[in-house]
């Protein structure tokens, strides 16, 4: 019996369809997508396994200009979580196109660029720069960065802003657009709906929870930047709830993330309504996590006698 199970494992269909518009069909061979900022640009993980085994790759966040990022310490550990304040360290979009994308060309999986901005125009500029990059399957708009022009408030906290930015990017960029939403909000379904209405192909939730840690010996914030974003297993229950609630209102696919460390966690997000998932923090701790998680998903399907993974999307409703 074990043998036949083993054999069966290869016959599971792990693929998921995240198409929301016929003009931009997208099927991933499995639901695992690297979460922006936690997997470098792929090279590093490639030392551990063939990342082409994943469903898709999302690059770390890029901005218009090169960014040195925040001062260190940039990371603090908390109970079952971490707070990071990397501060979008990246070489800027020019170098990204010149140096990083050519490497991505060799990947045999869909690659998305995660774009961040400090003003609305930044997003439009980036969308424009990337619109003809054939290496990319699409872009992910990170709406959790502070809007410098708008007084430092995060873009993603107002449904109207989310709508405006997404709509304009949609006009500029004809490829697949993921809008990544912040959980630091009263009702995430409002921003999710705004993204959908503006033409996003998918929403990704959640980015990190606003958080901080204080060094009680030094009596000052531990992170040089004071505040940072909480990720890891600690936030999973919050993320699952947001996915669950959004699934009831949205028509476009949801990419669920926040605290995934195992195949079981992926299943939990998919039952809540995620069509695909992001794996973030766990890559930092267990570089082979992607492979292990795929195995664990198959184990679950075998145990539950399910053939098509996609059949469980939203099944907990």
């Amino acid at each position: 019996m074990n043998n036949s199970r083993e054999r069966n494992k290869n016959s599971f269909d792990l693929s998921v369809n995240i198409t929301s518009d016929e003009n931009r069909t997208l099927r991933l061979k499995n639901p695992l997508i690297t979460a922006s900022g936690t997997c470098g640009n792929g090279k590093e993980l490639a030392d551990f396994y063939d990342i082409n085994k994943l469903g898709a790759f999302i690059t770390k966040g890029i901005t218009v200009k090169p960014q040195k990022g925040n001062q260190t310490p940039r990371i603090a550990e908390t109970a079952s979580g971490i707070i990071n304040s990397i501060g979008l360290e990246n070489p800027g979009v020019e170098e990204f196109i010149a140096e990083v994308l050519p490497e991505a060309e060799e990947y045999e999986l869909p690659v998305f660029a995660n774009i961040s901005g400090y003003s609305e125009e930044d997003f439009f500029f980036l969308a424009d720069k990337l619109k003809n990059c054939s290496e990319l399957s699409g872009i992910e708009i990170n709406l959790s960065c502070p809007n410098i022009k708008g007084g430092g408030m995060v873009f993603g906290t107002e449904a109207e802003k989310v709508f405006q930015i997404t709509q304009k990017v949609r006009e500029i960029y004809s490829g697949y657009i993921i809008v990544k939403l912040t959980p630091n909000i009263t009702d995430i379904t409002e921003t999710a709906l705004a993204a959908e209405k503006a033409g996003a192909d998918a929403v990704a939730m959640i980015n990190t929870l606003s958080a901080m840690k204080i060094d009680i010996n030094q009596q000052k914030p531990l992170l040089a930047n004071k505040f940072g974003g909480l990720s890891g297993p600690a936030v999973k229950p919050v993320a699952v709830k947001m996915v669950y609630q959004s699934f009831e209102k949205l028509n476009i696919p949801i990419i669920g993330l926040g605290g995934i460390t195992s195949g079981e966690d992926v299943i939990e997000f998919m039952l809540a309504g995620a069509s695909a998932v992001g794996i973030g923090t766990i890559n930092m701790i267990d570089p082979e996590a992607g492979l292990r998680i795929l195995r664990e998903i198959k184990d679950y399907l075998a145990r539950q006698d399910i053939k098509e993974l996609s059949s469980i999307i939203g099944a907990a409703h």
Partner: protein
Amino acid sequence: MFEILSNKRVGPKIYHLVLSYEQLPQNPEPGQFFNIKVAKKSSSDPLLRRPFSLFDFDEADKKIEFVYRVVGRGTEILSESKTGEKLDVLGPLGNPFSLKDRKGLVHLIGGGMGIAPLYYLSKKLRNSIQKVFLGAGTYEELEFFSKKFKGLDLDVHLAAMEEKLEIKGSALVLWLNYLQQETPNFVYSCGPEKMLAAVEKECLKNNIGGELSVEKRMGCGIGVCLSCSCQSKNEENKNKRACVEGPVFGMGEVVIGE
């Protein structure tokens, strides 16, 4: 999985951990580190691995060794781990000390737990005349290290902040004394950032080559998260990752001391 062969207290809050391994992706070199998970498999707290420099390595017996100090909850849990337990260990990681053609007089300066990575380095520096400067708070903290280095038949000099050994003071002060008498060909150093910054300054001033191993808070240890960025000194706007381009950097390579 690595198995704990022993995990013994060798000083105040200081432990010597010996692990056996079945296989390693490659043999570790001096200055590299390993990232150790201290939480049980089914526990997600503490979440991050803890980085520790290679203290010693024995290929024949398939052993790697570390020396660590209990400073927080991760090292506390580690210190409670018993012989026979398995540990999830990732490595070797990072950029090692360079060894090639290192001839003439070499100074090794280690402060506190920064001494740990210098021991395996010392073992490998066969072509050099070594002088080792070690400092810590008390002799008790140095005893284990001192014996190990002396076991290599090296010229070892000790300093402690709280009691007079060769001097009463830091490894840095001790070294600076010697520096007035002799100029080494190369310096290796690891320890608190302030000490490293001073060593670096001295070496640059006197045109002495050298390498420093820096400790940065790390998220991943494998270069994916950019938690450990150090600002490059030469290239404006360029950062170097302590976990990949470091922890060993050349003198003047990155900005030391945050």
